[in-house]
């Protein structure tokens, strides 16, 4: 119902339209009534397939009709159809979804039915599916249904990430403003060129990617796709949780973290012995500040750890209070937790220089200003 222009029509046109619509509605209701009552009577046959196909061609979003088709097909497959028969029958489903997608290339029902049909097939032709995706993406390079479908096909067909990366390059080459392609790259790069922790990318790859996206961004500074991607490449990585401090005040132990965690993630040891403890916080489940009551040994140590972070409080006789700072303490006082190394610093400086140059040409370029 989106994207329909309101057009003024004459009385005559209105009349004709009404007649046409009345006929269409009658046909639709008749078809649906027949299909649904035959279903209630238990018919799972070619007639149902023919009838549902007819309605779906102009109404591909009627989920129930796709469901009926699946029921009929599963019933047909119960009988001993040889492998080739099954695939021939399912090929017809692919044809149907294809013509439905011409009517509505964003029909969830049609895309899912296609997916389901391929899952049922004995020998699916994945290359054909990739070619189909190519065609649809040529029509609309931002059709996320098609991109998602392509990713699924690629995983089933065991297409290499490298291949997919090249595909995104093709798409970007055709049109720099292809957010969907940049997005796909953001998923492929950490797999192909993993960095030192989850979801990060090898440094030299980040640099070459920056080069690539800068070309795009500077070709059309008003297009946002490349700029968003650019910002991500320049930005910080997601940090793991760190301990800010751990403090003991008589029998109260306080733990402060850089991110909220669950109390089940906290490990407490008193003089090397693990201690079960009840930690409390403002929220029932996730807190960045947790407190517990303990009976501290008169001397020795208290070790607290969360994931791979650990701090040790050394206790001294007659000292009631004690505080130890963790790695997270620095993040409160430093703007950049991990200062860039020399190579990265050079790249960032160049990026800044490029932005400044572009601003001389296009001083109102919003994206350039943000990025700078």
């Amino acid at each position, binding site marked *: 119902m989106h994207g329909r222009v309101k057009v003024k029509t004459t009385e005559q046109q209105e009349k004709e339209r009404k007649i046409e619509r009345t006929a269409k509605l009658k046909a639709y209701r008749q078809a649906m009534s027949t299909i649904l009552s035959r279903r209630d009577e238990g018919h799972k046959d070619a007639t149902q397939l023919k009838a549902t196909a007819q309605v779906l061609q102009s109404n591909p979003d009627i989920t129930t009709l*796709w469901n009926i088709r699946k029921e009929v097909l599963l019933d047909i497959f119960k009988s001993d159809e040889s492998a080739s028969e099954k695939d021939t029958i399912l090929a017809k489903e692919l044809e149907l979804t294809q013509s439905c997608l011409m009517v509505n290339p964003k029909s969830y029902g049609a895309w899912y039915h296609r997916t389901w049909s391929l899952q049922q097939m004995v020998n699916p032709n994945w290359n054909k599916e990739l070619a189909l995706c190519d065609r649809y993406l040529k029509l609309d390079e931002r059709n996320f249904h098609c991109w998602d479908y392509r990713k699924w096909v690629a995983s089933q067909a065991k297409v290499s990430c490298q291949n997919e990366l090249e595909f995104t390059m093709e798409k970007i080459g055709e049109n720099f403003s292809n957010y969907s392609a940049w997005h796909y790259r*953001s998923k492929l790069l950490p797999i192909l060129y993993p960095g030192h922790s989850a979801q990060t990318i090898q440094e030299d790859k980040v640099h070459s990617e920056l080069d690539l996206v800068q070309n795009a961004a500077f070709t059309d500074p008003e297009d*946002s796709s490349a700029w968003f991607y650019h910002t991500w490449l320049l930005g910080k990585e997601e940090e793991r949780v760190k301990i800010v401090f751990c403090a003991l005040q008589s029998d109260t132990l306080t733990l402060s973290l850089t991110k909220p965690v669950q109390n089940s993630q906290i490990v407490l040891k008193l003089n090397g012995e693990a201690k079960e403890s009840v930690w409390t916080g403002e929220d029932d489940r*996730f807190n960045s500040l947790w407190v517990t009551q303990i009976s501290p040994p008169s001397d020795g140590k208290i070790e607290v750890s969360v994931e791979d972070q650990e701090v040790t409080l050394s206790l001294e006789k007659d000292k009631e209070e004690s505080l130890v700072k963790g790695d997270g303490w620095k993040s409160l006082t430093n703007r950049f937790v991990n200062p860039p190394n020399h190579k990265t610093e050079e790249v960032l400086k160049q990026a800044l220089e490029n932005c400044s140059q572009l601003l001389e040409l296009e001083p109102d370029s919003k994206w350039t200003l943000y990025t700078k």
Partner: protein
Amino acid sequence: MALGRKDAKIPEDSPTELLLEKHVEFIKKYGEDPDDYEYAMSDFLRMNGLYWGCSAMHLMGHIDKMDKSSVIQFLKDCQVENGGFRPVQGHDPHLLNTLSAVQIAVIFDCLDEIDEEGVVKYVKSLQTEEGSFMGDQWGEVDNRFTFCAVACLSLLGRLSELEVDKAADFVKSCLNFDGGFGSRPGAESHAGLIYTCVGTLAVTGHLHYVDADRLGWWLAERQLDSGGLNGRPEKLPDVCYSWWVLASLKILNRIHWIDKEKLKTFMLACQDNETGGFADRPGNM
């Protein structure tokens, strides 16, 4: 090089005032003629449409204009044995309709008229091992369904019946480079899906999974020169995103990142001053 940026144009004679009475009439009239073409041909969306209509009427202070008893009867007629709701009689149940039905029941304060236990059982049965939700027995997984499930049970006060942490972790696995979320892991960020994911995380107490500044910025950038909002970069504005984007920003406490006056101008221009109701953009149906 200034290329034409995708955006809508606001015609000179566009409405500038809220035509509330016309909208009340539009919704009230909708469905009065069962043979109206648009109405009849969208019967497979009836339950969703009924929710949006009732919700709007309620916000406008005219819920009394809806026929409560026939709405309740409709809900009862659409709930099936497995607890799920159909969109309309004869069609199959689905999580999308189930949420709409529960939302309608809450608006009319008639939850006791539906089989709540049935709903809980149905929704629970659709959660997968990894924490995501299928829309129905046929297995399609999508974060629209994650939201439907948690919102539904949350409204019934039975959220604990689900594997809530798993659901939140599934949403987390859909986090993208831009701070947004898509329908499944690997899917591109989209304002509608962002609403469902941020909503899920809010309902389940996992909002800290979101980088609010980064996502807030991406959402704020949905606003175009016309004042309208689009659903993702380089797309045309559509008035429906006023809901998906603003609701998400509200949850993230960053609603002030949108230019309110410009958005208002755009939205008012989307009204149809003949029939009442809103089009997706000025000049459309």
